[in-house]
């Protein structure tokens, strides 16, 4: 309001002498927008050059290379191999997501109950892996899962000695769950911390048991956070490359590994591109569905996720201004 008032007052003042006349063609608001677009231009051009145009050219490749038509896509579903890889990837992503929800929910709930010091420790425990090198974390899992490693030894104690772990889908799933867990906790926390706990007390004072007031009041309110975290982890798991490449094996490859081999080693941009486009469609569909479910705009949710990142960024920069 005040800003508009000042702007219009400014507009009624006589134009300054040294200002070129053509500026007066635009209204102050229009001028502000034009300046805004000008400031946006470099970023838009960079993103178009290094992201959008390459993406378009891959989509074009996928329907023209080696011959025009949908043969690359038809092959995805008929060569038998790709469909198995896709199925395996979907199962791994679903298991990682489900396990992630089961682990993240109680942890995040505890974060909302804890005192300030405990909560700071719990946030740190989530942020440190979030910021730690992806390679370091996957390397650690490689060491733990290797033959003669700690996990195999522990399994030996319960009579499962000699089970091979490295190179199996099981090892990939366990490690991915751990690596992606922070991405589940952060969106969940941003929703749960806003829930008014007095609603639970109100439920109990109206005669509900602790459990049913949690189930009927708290849980539904926390669902947007669960859906946001779950869809984020699911999408990240679909395209995950490092963990399956280090802990899995070519025999039980996930889609990202196959895309890498097809394009990096075989330079088959048509086939690899078709897989990539398929993955993009699944990703966008999952995000659109989660947006529907939570009633949140995707930008808002990405903003929340970004808020997690920004909090972490401030923590690193040592400027924690609360």
């Amino acid at each position, binding site marked *: 309001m005040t800003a508009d008032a000042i702007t219009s007052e400014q507009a009624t003042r006589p134009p300054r002498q040294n200002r070129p006349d053509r500026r007066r063609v635009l209204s102050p608001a229009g001028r502000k*927008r034009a300046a805004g677009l000008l400031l946006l231009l470099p970023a838009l051009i960079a*993103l178009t050059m290094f992201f959008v145009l390459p993406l378009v050219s891959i989509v074009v490749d996928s329907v023209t290379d080696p011959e025009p038509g949908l043969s690359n896509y038809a092959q995805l579903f008929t060569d038998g191999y790709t469909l198995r890889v896709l199925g395996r990837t979907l199962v791994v992503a679903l298991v990682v997501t489900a396990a992630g929800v089961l*682990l993240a929910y109680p942890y995040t709930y505890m974060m909302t109950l804890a005192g300030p010091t405990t909560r700071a420790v719990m946030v740190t425990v*989530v942020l*440190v892996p979030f910021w730690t090198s992806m390679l*370091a974390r996957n390397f650690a899992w490689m060491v733990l899962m290797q033959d003669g490693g700690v996990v195999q030894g522990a399994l030996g104690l319960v009579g499962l000695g000699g089970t091979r772990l490295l190179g199996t889908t099981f090892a990939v799933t366990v490690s991915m769950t751990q690596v992606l867990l922070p991405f589940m906790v952060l969106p969940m926390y941003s929703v749960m911390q806003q829930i008014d706990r007095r609603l639970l007390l109100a439920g109990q004072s109206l005669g509900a048991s602790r459990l049913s007031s949690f189930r009927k009041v708290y849980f539904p309110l926390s669902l947007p956070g669960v859906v946001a975290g779950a869809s984020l982890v699911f999408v990240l798991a679909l395209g995950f490359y490092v963990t399956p*490449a280090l802990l899995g094996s070519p025999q039980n490859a996930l889609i990202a590994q196959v895309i890498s081999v097809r394009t990096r080693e075989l330079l088959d941009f048509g086939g690899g591109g078709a897989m990539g486009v398929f993955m993009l469609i699944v990703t966008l569909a999952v995000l659109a569905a989660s947006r529907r479910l939570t009633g949140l705009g995707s930008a808002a949710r990405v903003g929340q996720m*970004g808020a997690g990142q*920004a909090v972490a960024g401030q923590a690193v920069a040592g400027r924690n201004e609360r």
Partner: protein
Amino acid sequence: MSGARARPWLKIVSVLIGLFLTVPTLIVVPMSFSASDTFTFPPRQWSMKWYESLFTAPQWTDAILNSLEVGLITATLATVLGTAAAIGLARLGERVRGLVTGFLLSPIIIPNILIALVIFSAFLRAGLTGSLLGIALAHTALALPYVVIAVTARLQGMDPALQTAASSLGARPFSVFRKVTLPLALPGVLSGAVLAFVISFDEVVIALFLQSPTAVTLPVLMFNSVTVQIDPTISAASSLTVLVVSVPILLAQVIGARRGNKERQR
């Protein structure tokens, strides 16, 4: 507190999950002091030789320098472009702003393997593969959304009347930017720059696609040192990255919690 007490089982479960989040990663620290040429855990004999290798072997020092170079170029480009874009966004009408924001943030939701694939194919045609600049340009696209988010968050908390006041007092647009907008947005700009650097420094998939013998970043060398040729120096590199990241976060959190406690006591 507000009458809410955590049940004992919830505490135990949370501690276990906290251990699951941290302990597997922390084993890289003792690993890095192993004297063995294989990845035996726990190590039987100790040495500093992998740290020595990390800081003296040319391939590792080159990779560290390459990663720093790529990270700095990325942070500079992404911060300049992202800050300008965030300030521009704030000036747009609501509808256009939503559309443009969606476009600017889109690299966040696209799987990295797909970004790597499309950039690799484009750079192959443009002859940009195998150069550090190419990697930095690709990382800039990846890091740009995070700078936009960090700066936008900061700008949203700012009173727009301040800028209007400055220009109504006769300041030119550029000096409004230099003397009012930028100083107020600076914390957002700085955290955006740190984010962009860290994203680039840790990124492996795109860097793997674009690598060449002369353009190997630290994550790529770490990846190759367990897939192509076993090199236990990776354990020293891993534990160094864990420490470099954990200590500042831990300090910031502890200081933040203390400050919070003090404010509550007042």
